[in-house]
């Protein structure tokens, strides 16, 4: 793997992990969902770098877009604040 691509993918993965942690940490559920969608999109880029264009496409279309829409609708229909702990 090309060194630039490797560094790029490191970057993507670190970002993904940060986004995932944010997604489960923030109190605002809408924000959490958007972090989650961003994470999925980054993962789909990682799939592309791993020479899996089919999977990348699926992840982008289904994992990122549709899933996020479903989340957003669910949040919209319930409540936006995660007020536990």
């Amino acid at each position, binding site marked *: 793997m090309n060194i630039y691509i490797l560094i790029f993918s490191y970057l993507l993965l670190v970002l993904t992990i940060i986004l995932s942690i944010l997604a489960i940490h923030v109190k605002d559920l809408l924000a959490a969902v958007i972090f989650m969608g961003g994470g999925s999109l980054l*993962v789909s880029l990682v799939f592309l770098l791993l*020479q899996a*264009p089919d999977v990348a496409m*699926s992840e982008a279309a289904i994992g990122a877009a549709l899933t996020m829409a479903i*989340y957003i609708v669910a949040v919209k229909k*319930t409540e936006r604040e995660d007020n536990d702990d």
Partner: protein
Amino acid sequence: MIFYISALLIIGIGIYALIIKKNLIKIIIGLDLIETGINLLIVSIGYVNGKTAPIFSKDVMNASLMVDPVPQALTLTSIVIGASELALAAAFVVLLYRKYGTLDIRKIRSLRW
């Protein structure tokens, strides 16, 4: 290697959200994270250094230069099924919210039988 490690980390974060979080939507996000992590893990298993995507084109006709197609095919299935499972879970969450007026699982205690 970093792919494995980050996939495992994502899975760990997902499991953590699944156990610790009390909010139903957070729990679903945890499930989704686990699924994403596992997909990443499977695809990175199939990756072979310096080889290209398993798609023949006029430039690449040599099968020995391609990565493993099987994990990718499996992951394809996994993503679609994950999405449908998620839609179902979201529907459950919305219905539970309608019934109990809360997303806090500590207040939804009708799982007893």
